[in-house]
């Protein structure tokens, strides 16, 4: 029974490694965290969860620039277990 529950949980949820940079890291007071999400969740879903649960996360815009596994990613990009999702303030390189 314990083993069945464990297996069911592993297929039903994913863990996403979130990273925050620059002004977002300053605002949240952290630069990374693990986030559990239901399987099938998108970048937009994960951002919504962060905005609902993190203190001061209303400092994040509803649709921040994001990257998944170190490539720019649209809000509807699906997330998989173990993905690295980064939230990027407006870019200002150069």
């Amino acid at each position, binding site marked *: 029974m314990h083993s069945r529950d464990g297996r069911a949980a592993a297929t039903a949820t994913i863990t996403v490694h979130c990273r925050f*940079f620059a002004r977002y890291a300053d605002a949240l007071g952290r630069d990374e965290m693990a986030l559990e999400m239901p399987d099938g969740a998108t970048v937009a879903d994960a951002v919504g969860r962060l905005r609902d649960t993190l203190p001061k996360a209303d400092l994040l815009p509803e649709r921040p620039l994001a990257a998944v596994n170190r490539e720019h990613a649209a809000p509807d990009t699906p997330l998989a277990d173990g993905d690295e999702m980064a939230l990027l303030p407006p870019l200002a390189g150069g």
Partner: protein
Amino acid sequence: MDYLTRDPIDVGRLLGVVTDDGRGGTVVFLGSVRRGAEDGPVAAIDYDAYEEMAGSEFDRIIAEARERWPGAGFAAQHRLGEVPRGEPSIAVVAAAGHRAEAFEACRWVIDEAKHRLPIWKKERFDDGSERWREE
């Protein structure tokens, strides 16, 4: 050569990467820290990056440029950490058979870099205050 560096940018080294006697036109862009009169004198800019992504994104930009301008040579570098006023924070070099291509290719790479590299800057003013600068 690494796309990211914490040392001053060495333009001569970047030029060495693209030099080829089939390429008659070379264009270099250097973006430097301005004193920035609007909000008081900027002493330096501290560049912060999502380094693992910035390096691979710069690599993707250059790979796309090579497809657009076959035969052209490219080199580019972004400096991270504190860059004093007047020093370059980014350099892009494009060398091609003729000057029109070299100008277009260099301009394309710097425009893409500005839009795509996950890099941020915190301005440090002469009075010691600092502020994230988003453009």
